[in-house]
């Protein structure tokens, strides 16, 4: 009993001590103390890693940089203003619906590529998505599959080529579209052909009849892409985007 009383008094004293100065500043902690900072062991760790990241096969760099600049200007003066107009003129549910319709059409090539890559489970999930969204989702306007736990799993022809060991080849900036590579640029054409041949829901026929739908598709594509030129806040944006694009594709292909 005695010792509890003593403890109580001690604790009380301790807490009163803290209470006496309610505005006392929180105690400084140096986060660098938890690190092992060792210049000898890590000399050039940053430089070595960064220099390696700059090694990307880019034989037509001069051309690419010009197209990159053109795309940035086009984005600033044409593409983004149009997208802002689109956002201003349409309620969100319409934009989401538009976006869903195009991504449902995109699931056709996602499925074809998943099958060719022999990704059995992914193919099954994408098939379910197509069936659910086209029927319950009213021609893809609603992404009911996502709500049921089946998010879209993008697989393009560039990834398919990559998964069969085709190297990316030279880095390429495609006018209007942005970063790509010889392999992935070819892949885009491949995906276009797949969609053409599949003729799912006769979409090409309808789109050719109503040419404005291609414009809508382009606006939707930009609407859904968060990238902004200048967002990396660096005079070396081209170099950084080149590395990030290359790594992103490697990551996608490895899955």
């Amino acid at each position, binding site marked *: 009993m*005695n*010792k*509890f009383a*003593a*403890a109580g008094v*001690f*604790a009380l004293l301790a*807490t009163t001590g*803290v209470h006496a100065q309610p*505005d006392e*500043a*929180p*105690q*400084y*902690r*140096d*986060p*660098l103390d*938890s*690190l*092992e*900072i*060792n*210049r000898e*062991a*890590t*000399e050039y*760790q*940053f*430089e070595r*890693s*960064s*220099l*390696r*990241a*700059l090694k990307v096969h880019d034989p037509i*760099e*001069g*051309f690419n*940089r010009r197209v990159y*600049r053109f795309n940035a200007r086009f984005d600033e003066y044409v593409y983004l203003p149009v997208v802002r107009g689109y*956002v201003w003129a349409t309620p969100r549910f319409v934009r989401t619906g538009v976006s869903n319709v195009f991504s449902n059409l995109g699931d056709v090539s996602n499925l074809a590529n998943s099958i060719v890559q022999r990704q059995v*489970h992914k193919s099954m999930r994408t098939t379910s998505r197509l069936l659910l969204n086209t029927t319950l989702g009213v021609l893809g306007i609603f992404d009911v599959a996502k709500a049921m736990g089946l*998010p879209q*799993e993008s697989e393009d022809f560039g990834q398919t080529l990559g998964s069969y060991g085709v190297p990316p080849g030279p880095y390429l900036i495609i006018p209007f579209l942005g970063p790509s590579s010889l392999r992935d640029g070819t892949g885009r054409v491949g995906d276009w052909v797949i969609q053409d041949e599949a003729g799912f829901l006769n979409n090409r026929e309808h789109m050719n009849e109503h040419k404005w739908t291609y414009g809508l598709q382009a606006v939707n594509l930009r609407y859904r892409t968060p990238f*902004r030129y*200048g*967002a990396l*806040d*660096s*005079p*070396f944006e*081209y*170099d*950084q985007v080149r590395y990030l694009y290359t*790594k992103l594709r490697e*990551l*996608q292909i*490895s*899955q």
Partner: protein
Amino acid sequence: MKRIIATATLSFTLLGSYTAQADNFSYSEENAFMATIASTPLEQVAPVPSEFDVQQDDLSIRVLPDRKLPPVLSGFDELDFRLAWQDQPAPLMFLIAGTGSGFDTARMDYLKRVFWQAGMHVIVLSSPSNHDFIAAASRSGLPGLGRRDARDLHSAMSMAVEEAQETKGIEITEYHMAGFSLGALNAAFVGELDQQLGQFDFSRIVLLNPPVDLYTSITRLDALPYTRVKGVDGTDSFYEHIFNKLSRYYAQRGSIDVQAGLFADIQASDEALTDAELAMLIGAVFRFAAADLSFMSDVITRGGVYVPVDQQLKVSTSLTPYLRQALFCNFKCYIETQLYPDWQTRNADQSISQMAEETSLRSIDSYLRDNPDIAVVTNADDFILTGEDYQYLVQLFGERAFLYPRGGHGGNLQHKDVVARILSFVEGTPNE
């Protein structure tokens, strides 16, 4: 003896539970590096309107009419800034971005919405250390000196206000200013300059996570890339190491879906980034900012450090070789090879530490001390500060030092308690 141990143990337990509640700050991230990168958990973020709902526009001003830029930098001869405005007369808040950050970063956009929602006009400016500002608004092309940067900023701010009044017809009742990190140091010096010029006559100035002494803080940031990372040795690439982790994380999940909360998910998985990796990432970000800075300064001053003086930088010119060189230059290197030699041309007998002293809050101590209109927000674990720096801020600002036990370098600036406290200071209303 037993009694003493029992007493000690018990009181420690009591004390322990007391300290856990001692601060009623609900931001719980104890790891300063994690806090800095992951920021505030969504459920604790002070709500602000969406970007689409803010009445705003990006405007630009020509600050230096005589500046000639090479084609690769065309478009940077005008300084862009962001304006969010009110239709009725209102106070105007200037926001100044941190090291190597532009006016259009997510952090600045968030703060902009905080003050816009509170009924103010807001003008967001890039950091004087950012490449766009160096090109368009830095007379010397060599940022890093408190007073000189303040003059550049002050001119840009005056022109930005004129532009805002002309194009949007805004009416301003009074001026406030806030800056983050290096931008906070800039704000303090701009405030001091304006006190002498009497142009804006700022009602409130808030310094968010400022360094005390720029030179000390950059030395600490420069040290981060020398962190030993387990699994990165000899010839390994640190970035590959991180990408491999990401790759394994996705492989386990079976799909790639980049979405909000991704970082928290990774940290909860087997592939969670370690302290050392987080610190290294932060260090690498600052090193790239340093490379940008020393390259841009070289181009603007025609210093010939990276780019030969007669070399024409065209749109198609590869900048990669210059980046390769500039990567080797950290902040300290920039100061020693570019900023200090230029300073010496005017102050031949002065040392580098004397130069650094002039870009320290200590050099404007008398302006900041007992000034009821200036507050500081910082954290006990902000890694740009030494213990001494932290104590200096505590005693310099007294009850206008809003100190938090956790948050790293700006990780808690979206927290509802922090936002409320900043707003009540700026608006002059009692808090709590």
